[in-house]
């Protein structure tokens, strides 16, 4: 076997199907540590008595879900899978997508989970959590050798309905971005189940801008935008939205958002797009990393 052959990872679609099923269920039951720590941080800094009661109930719910092996939230969401394929990985792409879909169907039937997915016009629910183009599967590539990462995000609808795009113009500057984010957080109020992660996409095309907002909303707490201007905007907007007094569940308080996250892309000389996508406090995600050593499950 040549050195080139040794640097390969062959991924079996059957293993992807198992992982896709396991990750959907795990994501619905166990919150990532960064989100749990985010709750402790908000609770320690909250000045409003009602808000502290609300946060305490949310923290209790995380414990009850783990103790009783139950779902954190009834909303099984829209299943999203982010696939990151490293160098030297061999996988049949079409088989990979089919395997993820089968994993979603099996999780729904075998656990069982509520199928939250319907045809957009007939509203018929196939009871599989699947439908046209659902689950959402995003595929990207990385330099890392011999690694395939599968991240699962069950995106709840209460916060997904808090999604907005504005094609601002260059003359409105960065003020248009800041104002848009603050106004959408006010508009969303308690409907998006605060405390939230407010995802902001800046730049790109309209579709890329909205996608970046989702990437930002589903990033771990504590992570920063790689661009220094984006990171500065994150700090400013986190301060601004938490000065509004909306609070957990929109019942008042300091803890409106765990954080505002920003992702950005270059844009056109005539454009200044900004998008908002909100992640509720049940900021669920789970991942499986395939390497030559095996499969590691985490967040």
């Amino acid at each position: 076997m040549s050195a080139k052959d040794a640097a390969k990872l062959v991924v079996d679609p059957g293993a992807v199907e198992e992982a896709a099923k396991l990750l959907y269920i795990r994501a619905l039951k166990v919150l990532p540590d960064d989100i749990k720590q985010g709750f402790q941080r908000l609770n320690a800094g909250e000045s409003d008595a009602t808000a502290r009661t609300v946060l305490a109930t949310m923290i209790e719910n995380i414990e009850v879900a783990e103790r009783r092996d139950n779902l954190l939230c009834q909303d099984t969401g829209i299943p999203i899978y982010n696939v990151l394929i490293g160098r030297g990985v061999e996988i049949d792409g079409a088989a990979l997508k089919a395997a993820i879909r089968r994993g979603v169907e099996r999780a729904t039937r075998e656990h069982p989970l509520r199928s939250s997915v319907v045809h957009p016009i007939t509203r018929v629910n196939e009871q599989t959590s699947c439908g046209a183009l659902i689950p959402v599967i995003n595929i990207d590539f990385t330099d890392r050798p011999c690694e395939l990462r599968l991240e699962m995000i069950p995106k709840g609808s209460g916060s997904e309905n808090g999604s907005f795009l504005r094609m601002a113009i260059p003359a409105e500057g960065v003020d248009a971005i800041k104002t848009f984010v603050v106004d959408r957080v006010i508009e969303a109020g308690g409907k998006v189940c605060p405390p939230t992660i407010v995802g902001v996409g800046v730049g790109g095309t309209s579709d890329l801008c909205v996608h970046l907002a989702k990437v930002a909303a589903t990033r771990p707490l504590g992570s920063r935008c790689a661009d220094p201007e984006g990171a500065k905007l994150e700090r400013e907007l986190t301060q601004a939205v938490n000065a509004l007094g909306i609070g957990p569940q929109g019942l008042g308080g300091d803890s409106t958002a765990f954080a505002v996250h920003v992702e950005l892309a270059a844009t056109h000389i005539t454009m200044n797009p900004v998008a908002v996508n909100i992640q509720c406090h049940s900021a669920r995600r789970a991942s499986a990393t395939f390497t030559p050593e095996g499969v590691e499950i985490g967040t």
Partner: protein
Amino acid sequence: MHHDFTMPIGEAEARALEVGDTVTLGGTLYGIRDATLIHMFDKGRRTRLDLKGHAVIHTAPNVKKVPGSNENPAGYAAVCVGTTTSARMERFTRPLMTREGVRIIIGKGGMGPGTLAAFKELGGAYLAIIGGAAALETTWIESIEDVDLDDLNPESLWKFRVKGFGPLLVAMDSHGGSMYDRVNKAAADRRAAALAAIGVKG
């Protein structure tokens, strides 16, 4: 003030609730949401279940099909029962009260001026439950007693038997009080200062 209600209740009990009070429910609780209400009020379907004086919660639970028994008379066991965002169901509050006699709505995120006006005129209240705290909420459900309009599953009309369901916060009452209005007004008042503090020129 705290109230313990065994459902159903009458108009006087609903009108006694004030924003800031807490309520714990026992007995029957009905689960409804988007498709249930669209079919009941837009598509002319009726339910055989009696909602008069009852509370409805905006939900669509995770359930498991099981053989019918005394414990699971409807053939369903609750897996995870939580609460969805109420605002989408705003236009159905009044018909729920006038046609079906509902007194209490339980949900998350609050409702609008139409709901507040219906509460004032007809005698009702909105109780805020903590959205996303479904694992905890499920421990307050004793059983699924009945189900109607089940072709809409999971958006069926569910009849739950509950015990110690709460404490829930009265967030909208029959006296024109709404915690959401108060918070929204405060946020609007703070908006300019919040933006100015991060360099936005008014």
